[in-house]
């Protein structure tokens, strides 16, 4: 028995909320780790503050602590649970940082907790820049000449030594926060302080810039016997200079010759040995494109986004293997689950090409700087598998769900050639499309190569797509030509665009010629061994390997890449749906394309198709598998968008029907239904011109909420309070959707409530009513949501439940429904109805103890609520409070407005739980980044219209011991009510200015309300950004401030109420 039997209980640290640079890949890794531990009979104690994850499901661990990831609390959990081991290398950088803190302060030693897998020393050697450099030098691995600096003064002479351009890399950060290229001493002066502030140890590295070198990554694993493997090599199409998370990445490497590849493989193994890692690591290299010169750029001694990608690209489950290594197994003792009969001690061989393309949030942040650099900006990614590079690339682009059917965008077709070239050399998120457009216009490959520094191989490959495009446009479509085009990844819809026909016609022609998709298996061994893996991708080849699963198969449509508005919650729902199907005796087939998530773990379903979530691919799968039904209600808007195509193709949509979806989305039908049900909604009008808009507002009255139709995550919405604001916004909105009406609603500033319910056509169970702290107008995804509904008046509860029942039955919902209400002046209005899973389902499932998706899936399969033993209209409250708090990634997105509004901006969420609402709030604040016991000074600069409400509130904080700094207007009003205020000047009007008190660390809280957003020149905007860049906490909503004040007592001491696990709170134990 290889396993260390002393280990009876192990603490696993999760990665917390999703932020740019740390996303769902850790849910995937962490869930695998917990499963492995449970399989080996080890009790799992988990700490993670992210409720939207599979990992934090109460069944995944024995004890789940949904607590802030702070060393204080983890120490308390250790004292309470007394685990023998700690597994910290699967919780991202957060997990690693926690392990270091607990190791350094002696906690681990004093409680006899053994760090499993990679030892503390190895983590230190990898993470500490100086130790790392020394270690690499000892084994002859070249590292860049660089200097560690802690102040600006010491940085200047060293920067001169290195020469510009140079790179600033803050120590101990994720996704390169605060780093970047620096071209002059002036830029160094501006950028270094930001970098130092971003580093938890106020340390930055200055190094020579290798812009234009190839960026190559290796995933390596090592066991206690010193057996080392490289699992996957990856090549960034975008050369060094753009963060790997923001680069298009292919696996395996494409432009390395055998000697390059062997050299770097040996280097990766030498490095993992030298560092002494027992587990997995990711090694990044820079390779000179003109020689064999290379440098080791970085090592992550843990699983990472890249290891998730490598796992999905090869089928080799790195997190699982690493967890077993941590338990004491050696690689040859671990079974390769893909083949089922070989061991994990081998290097995967692949017979396809994998392409990863990032998903950026610039559709939400139109003002953001789109230039890509060493600081990651994407929120998610897609992966595609093909048998040629053009095929994989086009599949990936179509998986992004940004409306691309190919490397073609109408907007970019309108660019001038100069604009194209500028963009290509700058390197922004659109570069791929810019390059393609430039190729169309005859810009030479050499010019594009020079501007982009992308390897000629990739430009040539993209040019193959361009050439094919031209041939399709110029020549009659023959069987051979169509076959060739399909093998290059051309979608039917794109061929239709190029030939002026329809995608249905193209499909018909194609199938008439017998050109059908085939399915190939991802088997880790390129066909060398027979495999059992239920993991497939499509391509156009001679032979098909797929054997349909047969009867009792149900397809789950996944949710695609993680983006703002559609995050990991929907992946959670897809996974639960698959599990529920299996419980009910069905075979679950998953279709998805997000390499980071649990749903694309081939163990989760009976069969996984790694495919674009596009009509063409999805229907092809359905025709092959012939499922008894398809579930579209769990994959967010992505799946909903496919519903009509699936329905029209003759497949059964299980649960809520297409008509239900249409009824909820079609505003005219929906309004007629509400009228019939006598339910109120804010007055609204659809308008198509400015003149119509003014007429409409005459009736509706300001303030109004303006939005385009068919929206996701509140994109493009804005509150307008005056004709000027309305005019300004409409000009912008009209640009977004030229042929769609714009909707103007009366904005009702009341209490916003959100409900998730399950209906079976006859009965309805409201699982919970959540109250939003921020008043209506702040997107529900960006609001603090409070559970349960203790503060609501009985009439309101009753009305909410009644309205939910009426709506669910009228819509004939079979499954989940999410409704948002606003209560204002004793009246309940309906804001939005979504007959599908919602962002709050994982949160509510956890705090209610009711596995909502499972219940809903069984309803969709025909088991009524009564049959499932659910008889209540309103599910019982639990005896504790929980708060869902949004988490933002502002520091990664420079120049973005941080004030909240109807557009969703948060990237992730945390949960806080407590006996009282205040305690839950305090924990939620803490989990989202507040540090207790530190506060004492705040800066207030409040817009005129908010002062009346803000002044008493600030006075309360002053009474709690806060020192108050304020700008003149706010200061006068504060003094008038007897608050002692230190006056600070507005920007450029004397010292100390607002920016001085923030950047010098004098205040640790900024309260600033948005007077008029969007304009980056305004003071408020700059103040808020300044707070973000200096890691100073801020509030832009007075509702949040009120909450903060209410739970302030919990922040006064560091002695917090001891952590309680979810299982204990739910009284399961």
């Amino acid at each position, binding site marked *: 028995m290889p396993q260390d039997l002393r280990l009876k209980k192990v603490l696993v640290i999760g990665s917390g909320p999703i932020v740019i640079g740390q996303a769902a890949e850790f849910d995937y890794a962490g869930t695998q780790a917990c499963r492995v531990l449970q399989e080996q009979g080890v009790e799992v104690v988990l700490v993670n503050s992210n409720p939207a994850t599979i990992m934090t499901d109460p069944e995944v661990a024995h004890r789940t602590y949904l607590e802030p990831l702070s060393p204080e609390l983890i120490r308390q959990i250790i004292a309470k649970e007394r685990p023998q081991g700690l597994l910290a290398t699967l919780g991202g950088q957060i997990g690693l940082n926690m392990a270091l803190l607990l190791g350094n302060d002696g906690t681990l030693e004093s409680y006899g907790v053994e760090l499993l897998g990679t030892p503390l020393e190895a983590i230190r050697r990898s993470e500490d820049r100086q130790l790392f450099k020394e270690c690499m030098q000892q084994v002859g691995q070249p590292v860049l000449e660089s200097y560690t600096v802690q102040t600006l003064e010491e940085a200047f002479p060293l920067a001169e030594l290195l020469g510009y351009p140079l790179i600033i890399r803050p120590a101990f950060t994720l996704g390169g926060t605060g780093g970047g290229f620096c071209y002059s001493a002036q830029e160094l002066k501006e950028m270094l302080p930001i970098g130092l502030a971003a580093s938890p140890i106020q340390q930055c590295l200055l190094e020579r810039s290798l812009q234009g070198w190839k960026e190559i990554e290796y995933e390596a694993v090592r066991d206690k016997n010193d057996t080392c493997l490289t699992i996957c090599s990856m090549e960034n199409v975008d050369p060094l200079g753009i963060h790997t998370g923001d680069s298009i990445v292919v696996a395996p490497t494409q432009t390395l010759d*055998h000697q*390059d590849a062997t050299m770097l493989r040996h280097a990766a193994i030498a490095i993992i040995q030298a560092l002494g890692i027992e587990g997995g690591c990711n090694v990044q290299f820079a390779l000179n494109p003109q020689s064999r010169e290379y440098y080791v750029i970085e090592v992550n001694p843990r699983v990472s986004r890249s290891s998730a990608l490598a796992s999905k690209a090869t089928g080799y489950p790195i997190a699982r293997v690493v967890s077993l290594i941590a338990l004491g197994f050696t690689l040859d003792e671990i079974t390769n689950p893909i083949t089922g009969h070989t061991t994990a001690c081998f290097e995967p061989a692949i017979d396809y090409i994998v392409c990863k393309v990032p998903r950026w949030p610039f559709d939400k942040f139109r003002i953001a700087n789109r230039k890509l650099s060493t600081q990651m900006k994407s929120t998610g990614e897609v992966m595609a598998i093909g048998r040629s590079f053009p095929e994989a690339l086009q599949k990936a682009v179509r998986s992004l769900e940004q409306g691309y059917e190919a490397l073609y965008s109408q907007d970019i077709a309108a660019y001038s050639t100069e604009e194209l070239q500028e963009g290509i050399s700058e390197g922004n998120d659109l570069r791929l499309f810019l390059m393609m457009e430039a190729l169309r216009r005859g810009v030479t490959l050499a010019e594009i190569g020079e501007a982009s520094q992308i390897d000629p191989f990739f430009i040539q490959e993209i040019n193959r797509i361009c050439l094919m495009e031209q041939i399709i446009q110029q020549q009659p479509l023959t069987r051979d030509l169509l076959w060739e085009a399909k093998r290059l990844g051309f979608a039917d819809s794109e061929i239709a665009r190029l030939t002026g026909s329809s995608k249905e016609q193209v499909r018909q022609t194609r199938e008439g010629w017998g050109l059908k998709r085939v399915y190939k298996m991802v088997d880790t061994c390129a066909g060398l061994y027979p495999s059992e893996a239920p993991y497939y991708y499509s391509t156009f080849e001679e032979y098909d390997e797929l054997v349909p699963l047969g009867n009792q198969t149900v397809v789950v449509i996944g949710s695609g890449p993680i983006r703002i508005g559609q995050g990991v919650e929907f992946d959670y729902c897809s996974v639960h749906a698959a599990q529920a199907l299996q419980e009910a005796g069905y075979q679950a087939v998953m279709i998805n394309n997000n390499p980071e998530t649990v749903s694309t773990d081939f163990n989760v379903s009976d069969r996984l198709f790694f495919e674009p979530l596009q009509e063409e691919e999805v229907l092809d799968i359905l025709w092959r598998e012939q499922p008894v039904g398809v579930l579209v209600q769990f994959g967010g808007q992505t799946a909903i968008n496919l519903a009509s195509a699936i329905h029209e193709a003759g497949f059964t949509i299980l649960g809520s029907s297409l008509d239900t979806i249409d009824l909820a989305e079609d505003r005219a039908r929906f309004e007629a239904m509400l009228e019939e049900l006598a339910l109120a909604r804010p007055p609204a009008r659809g308008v198509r011109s400015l003149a119509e808009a003014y007429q409409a507002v005459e009736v509706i009255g300001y303030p109004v909420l303006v939005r385009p139709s068919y929206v996701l995550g509140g994109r493009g919405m804005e509150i307008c309070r005056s004709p000027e604001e309305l005019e300004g916004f409409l000009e912008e909105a009209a640009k977004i959707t030229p042929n769609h009406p714009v909707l103007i609603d009366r904005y009702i500033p009341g209490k916003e409530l959100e409900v998730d319910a399950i209906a079976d056509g006859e009965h309805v169970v409201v699982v919970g009513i959540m109250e939003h702290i921020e008043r209506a107008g702040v997107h529900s995804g960006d609001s603090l949501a409070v559970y349960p509904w203790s503060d609501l008046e009985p009439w309101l509860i009753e009305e909410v439940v009644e309205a939910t029942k009426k709506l669910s039955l009228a819509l004939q919902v079979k499954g989940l429904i999410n409704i948002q209400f606003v209560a204002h002046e004793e009246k309940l209005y309906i804001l939005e109805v979504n007959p599908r899973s919602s962002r709050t389902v994982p949160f509510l499932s956890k705090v209610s103890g009711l596995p909502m998706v499972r219940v809903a899936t069984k309803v969709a399969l025909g088991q009524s609520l009564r049959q499932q033993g659910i008889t209540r209209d309103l599910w019982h409250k639990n005896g504790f409070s929980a708060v869902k708090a949004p988490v933002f990634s502002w520091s990664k997105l420079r120049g973005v407005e941080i004030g909240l509004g109807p557009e969703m901006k948060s990237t992730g969420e945390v949960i806080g739980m407590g006996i009282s609402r205040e305690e839950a709030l305090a924990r939620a604040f803490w989990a989202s980044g507040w540090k207790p016991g530190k506060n004492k000074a705040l800066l207030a600069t409040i817009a005129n219209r908010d002062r009346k409400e803000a002044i008493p509130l600030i006075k309360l904080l002053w009474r709690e011991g806060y020192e108050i700094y304020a700008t003149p207007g706010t200061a006068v009003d504060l003094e008038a009510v007897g608050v002692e205020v230190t006056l600070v000047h507005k920007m450029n009007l004397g010292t100390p200015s607002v920016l001085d008190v923030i950047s010098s660390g004098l205040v640790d809280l900024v309260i600033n309300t948005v007077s008029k957003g969007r304009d980056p020149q305004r003071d408020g905007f700059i103040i808020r950004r300044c707070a973000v860049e200096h890691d100073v906490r801020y509030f832009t909503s007075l509702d949040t401030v009120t909450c903060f004040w209410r739970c302030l007592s919990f922040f006064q001491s560091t002695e917090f109420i001891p952590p309680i696990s979810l299982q204990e709170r739910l009284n399961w134990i």
Partner: protein
Amino acid sequence: MSGYYEYICDPCSAGLILVFAYPLIGNYGVAPPAGAQGYAQAVVVRESCSHPSHHLTTSSLPAFLATQGIPLLSEVDTRAVTQHIRISGEVRGVVGAPDSQPPVSYPEAALPLTPTSWEEEPVAVKSDLPPLAVLDLGAAAAICQELKRLEYPLVVIPATQPVASHLPSECTALIISDGPGDPGVYRHLLPELQQLTTCLPVYAFGLGHLLLALALGGDCYRMPCGHRGSNYTVQTLPPVTLGDATLEPMHITSQNHGYAVLESSLLGTQLEVSHRELHDGTVEGMWHRSLPLWSLQYLPDCSRLTLDQTEECRAFWSYIRKVGS
């Protein structure tokens, strides 16, 4: 995924139609030295790249194969072919036009091969140490490259003639090289080899390893599915020490052979298995209970280019040094 050039130019590929499972072949082109020779009989790929990119590239793969007269077949579903080979065992094949008839019989490649690469560069003899004799079965070039670093004089013996006639009177050791094809072709060498093992340390690789087994009473067989690729896991059996060095318990090896030693045939011999492939149990290395002989089925490195990278190789060479002095 990389390494197509090395496999095409590996003498062990002589007589083989190489089917590459990875679909994109030729991305970085080729950079053949003067006089480079391709050995594969034909090359079959899913997609061959005619626009290679690498700073050392002097030719595209299709152009190189054309100069070598090696047929290239592309746009083939090579995964399907790979699976067919796995299921059917190493199958005979022919590359022809779509309407051509399959041949009646399949000719064997002409063996032994005439070694080429090392001949051009005269072997440096600067030492007064007794030389190392290398029996060349067609693939001594890579081994000779490494041996030169040891500063031993080298004497290379072609396999077409009696070994003894070339063997110097005083000799440090005999190295039997790798080479293509069926070890049975070399039966005429066996009695002599058997005799040499009693008076000289013998080290053998690849085909040499098979000959050594045959010479000492073991047997070989044609594998249903040869080992061809860069990711075979080899396990070192205890004791994992050789001389002063400790061998890695597991290593990933690059292989190119279609015959193997029949383990049961070693029962009556003094040979013992030292290495085994982890997944199919193929004998990958042997040593002798009393005599200084050791053999490996593979060249102990992933690249088939550099022999001194792995622990077992360092052990091997240091052992030679020790025996030599």
